[in-house]
């Protein structure tokens, strides 16, 4: 066993082979393999949900839900410590309350949904941190807020893989109604397509994926792999399906390169993955064929018709 080489001595020196760069870390370290599998599962399921959120102009909703699950996770933590099951059940309940509650509050008070969501998520974040602080020290708090990709244990891994499978299955069934509800909710309602029910199912999937992501990326970055690839995909696809494929591709690449970067350069893993995804967004906004900045600047001759 060679052990983990210090990045200061080795860094990204020229003699580093492709094997060393891309394969060795995962071949040598079990925790990295688990982190990779977990993140790849997330990358398959969460980005298509992000695409629908972007198209519905609900990009901030995922963030709100990610904060909204915190009090539930805190309650689970208070009952059972750092147990995946307890924290997930608590988080699921809290997330659903926020998702459904925000809609209900905005309808009942005649306000805008984004305002109700902002109020709820600030409340939830403060409540969550307060609850955790009654029992836990700063180590647990930072684990819950920032996650630990490298601490993904078996139950967490099963949960991430299970949620990803469920999400892909549900999306394959709900694709047509979701697109319709997204594009023309009036038509969906007139055709009695149960738009509200599909929207609710969709919100449940978002909460589940935020929970799965929370295991690895923590509350504050859970939506990184859901939203950043989806926002970037807008510049690559001209159909909902095309955008979803692009988003999944970007997320998979970001997970892999984020983990490798974190290993080779000794960076915190969650932020490294989200940073790579963010870099993908910047590149897409600059160079993407759909509404990218650079293609617009290229002064190609206009067409004749």
């Amino acid at each position, binding site marked *: 066993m060679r052990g983990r080489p210090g990045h200061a001595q080795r860094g990204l020196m020229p003699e580093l082979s492709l094997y060393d760069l891309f394969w060795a870390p995962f071949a040598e370290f079990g925790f990295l393999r688990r982190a990779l599998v977990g993140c790849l599962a997330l990358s398959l399921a969460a980005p298509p949900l992000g695409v629908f959120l972007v198209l519905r102009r609900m990009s901030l909703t995922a963030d709100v839900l990610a904060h909204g699950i915190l009090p539930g996770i805190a309650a689970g933590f208070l009952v059972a410590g750092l147990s995946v099951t307890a924290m997930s059940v608590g988080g699921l309940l809290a997330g659903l309350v926020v998702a459904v509650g925000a809609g209900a509050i905005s309808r009942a008070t005649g306000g805008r949904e984004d305002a109700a969501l902002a109020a709820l998520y600030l409340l939830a974040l403060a409540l969550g941190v307060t609850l955790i602080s009654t029992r836990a020290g700063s180590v647990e708090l930072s684990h819950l807020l920032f996650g630990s990709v490298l601490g993904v244990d078996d139950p967490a891994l099963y949960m991430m893989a299970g949620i990803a499978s469920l999400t892909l299955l549900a999306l394959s069934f709900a694709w047509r109604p979701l697109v319709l509800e997204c594009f023309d909710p009036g038509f969906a309602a007139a055709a*009695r397509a149960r738009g509200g029910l599909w929207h609710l199912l969709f919100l449940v999937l978002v909460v589940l994926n935020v929970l799965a992501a929370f295991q690895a990326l923590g509350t504050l970055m859970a939506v990184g792999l859901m939203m950043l690839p989806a926002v970037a995909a807008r510049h690559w696809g001209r*159909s909902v399906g*095309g955008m979803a494929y692009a988003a999944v591709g970007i997320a998979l690449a970001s997970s892999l390169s984020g983990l490798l970067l974190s290993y080779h350069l000794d960076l915190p893993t969650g932020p490294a993955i989200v940073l790579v995804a963010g870099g993908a967004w910047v590149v897409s906004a600059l160079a993407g064929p759909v509404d990218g900045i650079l293609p617009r600047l290229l002064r190609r001759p206009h067409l004749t018709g």
Partner: protein
Amino acid sequence: MSQADGITLTDLTLTHGRRPAVHHISGHFAPGSLTAIVGPNGAGKSTLLRAIAGLHPAREGGLRAPRHAIALLPQAAALDRAFPISCLDVVMFGHWARAGAFRALRPAEKRAAREALGAVGLEGFEGRPVGSLSTGQFQRVLFARLLVQDAPVILLDEPFNAVDSRTAADLLALVHRWHGEGRTILAVLHDLDLVRQQFPRTLLLAREPVAWGPTAEVLTAANRLKARMMAEEWDAEAEPCAAGPGTRSAA
């Protein structure tokens, strides 16, 4: 089309909050009739169409309409035209009532969608994203979706707004074709000359029905003046309406 394809309003009141959008209207759209709904902005025309389509709840009174048999053309401005979807995909949603959420579309159904695009003059536009269309072309796509829906009752909310005269003429020809096929058609319109020439019946609405019947008898100068007066009065001190059952039970 059958007798069931008429629409009956019985002392119907629709509200936004507590303000009436359509106040105590009674009447009948006969099966196979072609009716224009006219009136000033804010007169409740769109709200009435949305209620008939099942998108706006009746506050009081009765509304009988064949919900399963209705196709609604929304105001084009209500849709997000930046949405990444192709013309053909929009038109194919017209099959929803038969295909539902899950069933794959049959080749014949896909062909019907292509033919509908051709019938509105958009042959070759199948793969074009709707974001790249002009306002008139987008309206043609929505009419193609109506063609595919093949519904006995068709509700059109400002179908000829912001489209050029040639597009309006093409789409109007479709409306007459549907009328000839015996469908029941309601169209919210602003162009009174068009209504006089092309629509046999008219409902003049100003929150309350001002007149309803043969177009020539409805669109008189006196009625139009009355409509203008009624829509412009907006009483900040309005009392609860005594005619409504809700107020009687509350009293």
